[in-house]
Every structure is written in C-alpha cells, then in structure tokens.
C-alpha cells in the first residue's frame, strides 16, 4: 500500500466512513433439545458456533479454548426465526406518490435504533424482510435485515449478499390510495393489471434501448447512451430475474392475474404476501412454483379478507406450496412461534411442518436458505433458545443469537430502562392504531394532499 492510500484509509476510518464488519461470535450451546427443522429433532445435543458459523451439531461436543458455553439443559434450541414480511427497522414505509415507485428502496431508510428490533429479538426472531408498504401497485425495493440491535450503523442491519426484492401490491390498498385518493389508475383490479403490464412493457423498451446501445458501443465508442432511469432499470432487473417480486395480495382472482402477467413477461419466481385467498388457488400456486407468505389467522379487517380461513397455511402446505407465516406487525413479529403453532390447531401440521413456516420456508422465499433457516453445519449461527417447545403457548424465548453473538438474554434484560429518563418527559403514551403497517405513512399523505 502506498502511503497516500494509508493516509486516505486513516482519514476515512477517522471520520467513521469505513465501518467494521458486524461482530461474529463463537459459542457452544450444550445439552438442549435441538430442533434442526430440516434434519429432525436431536435430544440432549450441542450446537457449536465458531466465528459466526455453525461448526458442529451433535452430542458431547467440548468447547474449544476460550469459547463461551451456554447451558440449554431442559431448553429447546431452534434456528433463529425469519419473518418474510415486516416493516421494523425502517423509518419510512410508503412512498405513496405514484402507483409505480420501483426507484425507491427501504434500504435507504434503515433505522437501527428502532426498539421493535429488540422486541423481535425477545421473540426469537433474528431476520426479517423490511418491506416497502402496499400503497403502490409497484412499490419500492425491500431489504433483508438481521436484527443486530445495539449498533448505530444502519449498514450493520443488512444481511450482506441477500438477494434483492421488491414490493408489489394488488387490490384495495393501491385502489384506495391512487384511484379513490388521487383519481388516477388504478381504481379497480383491472387498473392494477394495466399498471403492471404498462410498467413491464416500458421496462422492456428501456432495456432494449440499453442493449442496443451496449451493442453499438462495441463498434462505435461515440454512441449516445439512453437516459438513465432508476425506476425502469429496477423493473428491467425484475424482468431478468435479478430482483424477486414479493406481492401483497388477497383475492384469488388477483393472484391468478399476477401469475398470468408473470408468465407473459417470463418471470419465474414470485412470492405472494398475505395471500389470504391463496387456499382457493393452491393448485395454481403450486403449479407455478409461487411462494406464499401468510398470516396465521388475521381476517375481516377489510372486505377483501372477509372470505378467509385460518386453515390457509395448512391447505397451501398440503397442496405443495412453499409457505411461511409472517408478521407485518411489530407485535406479531415477537411471537411468530405461536403464530406457527396455530397451524397445528387449524389443519394439524406436524411440528417440523409448523416450524418450517417460520424458518426454512421464509429463508427460501428470501433466497437465503443456503445460509439460514435451519440448524445445519456450515450455516450461519442464528439461534433461538426457548424455555418450552416453541410451539407451546407457554414457550418463553430465553436467548437469541445472531452470527454466534447473543443479542437477547432474558436474564440480562433490563427490567425497566425508564429509570434512566424522566417518565414525565417522554413523548407520552404510545397510541396504537395502525394494525396494518403496510399502509403506514399513507393516511398522513392523503389527508395533507386532498
């Protein structure tokens, strides 16, 4: 390295522009009931994590020198829970200004100080899909985050290398915001289709111009480039499969519509979100190879979810659809293990099937199943430890670990951090009105712009 490079490095390091990698730890979790999810349940077994990676799973593993040992006797050790749909850890959800906003990215609005991240950890959830909201037919790009709470650096939240994803939304939300709210297409589910087909077609044309330019460049270095357009570039990446669609949807007809549009534009991978009527078109979803990420039992909060059933996850699973249970809520994200257990009440899923809904299946839907979502040697050391079997209503998460680092420990949880601040000077009582954070930021916008 030339001295000037060292100087530049020191300058950047000094101003905090060069950040360290998120911490990776080593741990030995001893003598728990290990729920691997993909490779069965192992009684009285150990999990050894070295430098953030699961090195070994088995009996009587001894701790390498200097590695901390966690005694999990009588406890249950499972993969860190993954939420394929949430809005925590971001301080903006909806860019509700256009039916198509593929150019925005929630990764630009990460908020590592959001207390919801800590609360999610206290529920055993280690990874979530921080999504754009559902105000627009084609919303912004999303970010897969690990809940490395305690950092002030937004970049530490990112799950490095996770595939890019984008939020789409069908039905009532975009119809209400843009059709009813702004008097522009879409006001109906016909319009929703039209918006997507138009956007995809424009993206195809945009890509064709760039392809022609790149080709011409080879022989003519003075070729004139087309105008850069981030929105269309992102959509072109959707068409080429570089960005995966995660689509807010409820009704069977609109789910079929989007699958047809995808077929027409050659899109192979899609994950439907909420998809309350997915059970009605389960054979079609399975045939397409589409994924479904659902609520355990939410229904009747709007008309398009009135004809729902809590048996949705079970029907989808039995029909061969890769299904997950998501939260879409800073409350539910704390007890996804309980939400998954509801599929045993509604449809009799086995323990492994129910646990897969919050581990390996959402990992598949986020394209990170080679790294997380089960306890296997070589995977990342993301682990949740419970007092009882996690599918029991009496289960209490006791420790939550990411990359071999303990981020939540019930024994070291401050009883009431309020003592450090004057309770009378707090921003007062928290008003909880927004159940559906998908629409966060929209109502303010509508009220101010009517």
């Amino acid at each position, binding site marked *: 390295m030339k001295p000037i490079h060292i100087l530049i490095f020191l300058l950047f390091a000094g101003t905090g522009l060069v950040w360290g990698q998120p911490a990776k730890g080593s741990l030995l979790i001893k003598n728990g009931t290990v729920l691997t999810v993909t490779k069965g349940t192992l009684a009285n077994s150990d999990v050894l994590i070295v430098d953030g990676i699961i090195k070994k799973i088995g009996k009587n593993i001894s701790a390498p020198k200097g590695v901390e040992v966690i005694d999990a006797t009588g406890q249950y050790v499972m993969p860190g829970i993954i939420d394929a749909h949430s809005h925590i850890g971001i301080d903006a959800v909806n860019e509700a200004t256009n039916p198509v906003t593929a150019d925005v990215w929630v990764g630009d609005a990460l908020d590592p100080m959001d207390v919801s991240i800590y609360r999610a950890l206290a529920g055993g959830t280690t990874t979530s899909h921080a999504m754009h909201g559902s105000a627009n037919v084609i919303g912004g790009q999303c970010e897969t985050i690990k809940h490395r709470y305690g950092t002030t650096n937004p970049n530490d939240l990112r799950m490095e290398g996770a595939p890019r994803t984008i939020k789409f939304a069908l039905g009532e939300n975009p119809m209400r915001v843009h059709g009813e709210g702004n008097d522009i297409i879409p006001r109906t589910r016909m319009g929703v289709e039209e918006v997507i087909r138009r956007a995809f077609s424009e993206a195809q044309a945009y890509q064709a111009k760039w392809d022609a330019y790149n080709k011409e460049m080879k022989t003519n270095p003075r070729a004139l480039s087309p105008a850069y357009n981030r929105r269309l570039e992102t959509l072109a990446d959707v068409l080429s499969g570089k960005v995966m669609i995660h689509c807010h949807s409820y009704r069977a007809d609109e789910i079929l519509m989007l699958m047809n549009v995808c077929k027409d534009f050659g899109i192979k991978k899609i994950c439907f979100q909420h998809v309350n009527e997915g059970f009605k078109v389960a054979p079609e979803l399975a045939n397409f190879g589409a994924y479904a990420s659902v609520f355990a039992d939410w229904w009747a909060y709007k008309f398009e979810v009135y004809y729902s059933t809590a048996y949705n996850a079970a029907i989808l699973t039995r029909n061969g659809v890769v299904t997950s249970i998501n939260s879409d809520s800073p409350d539910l994200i704390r007890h996804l293990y309980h939400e998954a257990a509801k599929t045993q009440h509604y449809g009799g899923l086995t323990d492994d099937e129910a646990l897969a809904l919050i581990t390996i299946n959402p990992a598949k839907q986020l394209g990170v199943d080679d790294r997380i979502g089960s306890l296997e040697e070589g995977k990342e050391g993301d682990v949740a430890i419970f007092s009882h079997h996690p*599918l029991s209503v009496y289960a209490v998460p006791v420790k939550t670990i990411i990359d071999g680092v303990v981020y939540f420990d019930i024994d070291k949880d401050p009883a009431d951090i309020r003592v450090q601040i004057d*309770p009378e000077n707090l921003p007062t009582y928290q008003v909880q009105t927004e159940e559906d954070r998908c629409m966060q930021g929209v109502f303010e916008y509508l009220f101010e712009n009517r």
Partner: protein
Amino acid sequence: MKILKIFPLLLALCALALPSRAQLMYKPEKGTFALMHATIHTITQGTIEDGTVVIQDGKIQAVGKAVNIPAGAESIDCSGKEIYPGLIDAGTHLGLGEVESVSLTQDYNEIGDLVPEMQALTAVNPNSVAIPVTRVNGVTTVLTMPAGGRFPGTAALIDLNGYTPNQMFAGYKVVVLNWPRSGGFGRFDRRSPEDIKKAEEKALKDLNEYWDLAKEFAMLDAAAHKSGKPRNTDYNPAMEALLPVVNGQAPLLIEVEKDKDILSALRWIKEKKVNAILGGVSEGWRVADSIAAAGVPALVGPVIDLPSRPSDRYDAAYANAGKLNKAGVKIAIRTMQTENVRNLPYHAGFAAAYGLGKEEALKAVTINPAEIFGVADHLGSIEKGKQANLIVTDGDPFETKTNIEKVFIQGWDIPLDSRHIQLYHEFLDRQPGLKK
C-alpha cells in the same frame, strides 16, 4: 337423446345426494346429555377424574364421579377428554362489527360524547360470521362493548348462541366510561405542554359537571318517587341510563390505561362512591398496589400486545395480568377483539407463561369474570344448577394445538362449524383441481 335416457337416473342420483347435502346443515341441538368418564375441571370445586356431567334443560343437572343418568339422556363417552367451563372474554366488540374497514358494518361507535344510553345489545348481530368462528375455539360468553366518546354506551354480556340478542343475553349490562387520558397523543400532537395540561383539566371538569348533573337528575327522580308524582323532567335517555349508576345500584366500567390516569380514576371512584370496574389498565402493573388497595377489579387485556411505552420491558403486556394478580387485584382477561376473540385461550396462555400461572389464568377467563359481572350464580364454573356452558377438549384449553371437541352453550350442543372450517373442507383438496 342420451341425456333424456339418463335423466331419471340423474334424478335418482340427485335424490340420493340430498340427504348427504342436508347433513351439511348444522344446527345446535338441545337435549339431555351425559358427558361420561371425563376429567372435569370445575374451577370452584377442584378437579374430578373419571367424572360425569349431566346436562338437562339447559342446566348442569349433576356433576361428580357417581351420578344418576336421567332416562333418555344421550351418553357421550369422554374418556381421555377434559371438561372446562366455557371461556368468558371480558371485553370485545364481537357481534358489533363485521368488516373493520367498512364503516357501515361497525356498530360500536355512535356519534356523541355523552351517550351512555346506547345499547350494545341492540346492535349485536346474532348471525355475525365471527360468532361461530369464536365459539368453536371454546369461548362461549363475551362482554361486547361500545367504544368512542366519554360515555360511549352500555356494554352487554352475551352467550354465543341464539338467533336474537335477547336469546343471547347473559344477564349483565354495564355503562362504559372512557377515562380522560392525560398527556399528548403521539408524534402528530403538536400541542404545548400547557395546552395539554389545560385539556386534561377541562376533560376532568367536564366529566365532573356531567356527573353532578346525573346526581341532580337522581335527586329529582328520588323526590318524585317519594311524592308519588311523575318526575317533572324532559325526555333524557342519557340521564336515565346513568341513574342506577350514580345511585350505586349499577356498576360502571371505567376504561383507563396510563398509570397516572388509573390513580386519578381510583381517587374519583372513592370520592363519588362508584361501584366500579377498571378496563384495559395496560399500565396497571405500575400501580398494582393502589388498585389492589382500592379493591377495584380489573379487566386486563389484550395480553398479546405491545408495551405501552418504547422504554418498557418487552413483555410488559404479557406480564401485566400476573403482576396485578400478585398484588391482589381481582382480574379477568380480555382480547378487545372483534373477529379474533377466538384467541382468548392464547391470551390467557401468554399471561400464564409470563407470571400468572395456569390455574389463575383459567380463573381469569371463567369464574373471575363471572364474579366481577355478578353472574357467578349461573356462569363461570361447572357446578350443579349452573347454566350448561362448557367445553370438551383433548387437552389444556390454552395450549395452541389442543382441539375443542364439544361446545355446549345454554345446554345447546353447538355444531363445531364455522366459515373457516367450511372453506377448509371445500378447498383442502379442491375439485376440479388444475384441469377443467
């Protein structure tokens, strides 16, 4: 034509198909039932192994190890099963709302700040799709409540069976008071601290003035009674509704969440000598001793909920019921849900796991609400002579995977059916599948 030849055959097939179609029509059935060889959790009189419950004329006719089975009773073998009282949710909007975002299906929030006369029972829709969805999970009785202004109306306790509100009515009504909330209303509240304080003082002053008015009305009413002449007042249904409350004959359900507000409500209850119940009390754990000292019962919940302040411990809402109980407050658990009241057992389960314990949690959804609502003479436990609201399960009723195998409400054998279940049966193996 081929079709003509096979037409009689088709007709015959249709006729054959009819009985099986008819079986899809499930109706509650009344009768005399003997639930035998069950583990009976009476709540008030311990647990009976290998016992029998006899249901007759809508009531629990006998409970015990050796009981006489009336002639003609339908015997139901409950070996390996458990019997619990039907669960009671101490606060919901069930029957008053159908689709949350469609305002015209919402019947719990009337216009007006001072409308204690609004009757929740009037607006209960016995055919709400959410009612069968709820009772198949073991919830048989709920308090259904109005919401909104200072006095939003009168809540009613209902059994989840019946085709008219009166058939459902479970014998208890209570006027609701939303206690004035101190402090600001989140980040969009731009008022200065002085303005917030003024608004708080005004709200309390308005409440007291209104209460004084009701007191005056009660005095006029008492005087009229004494003189035997008709009361010389204008038509005033709000005052009529408050009359038994200010007289101390009827209870008042005070909805209050914040610690400081709970304390001011408790002072007010003492000063006005009100027969009060607290509802909500999400910050009750901060002032649990004060609530216990005042001897006021509390309807706690939702349990599965976020803490009220960002700085609270993450499990504040889960642990609230346990802390209140430990301090000596009589508690009942509620969901405050409309379509998902079915989650009541899980709210109780979370409370149990986070400090309340199973036994107390079970009381908090059975005998406690029955006692708080003054209906323990006919609800809340499995005792001879009580109304037959009970459930048969294959395990712990709070445990998520437990199945509810029978539900009896007012002695009716309730079909274990709901739209959610019907959709399951229709779509688990959809026909036609992929092909036409």
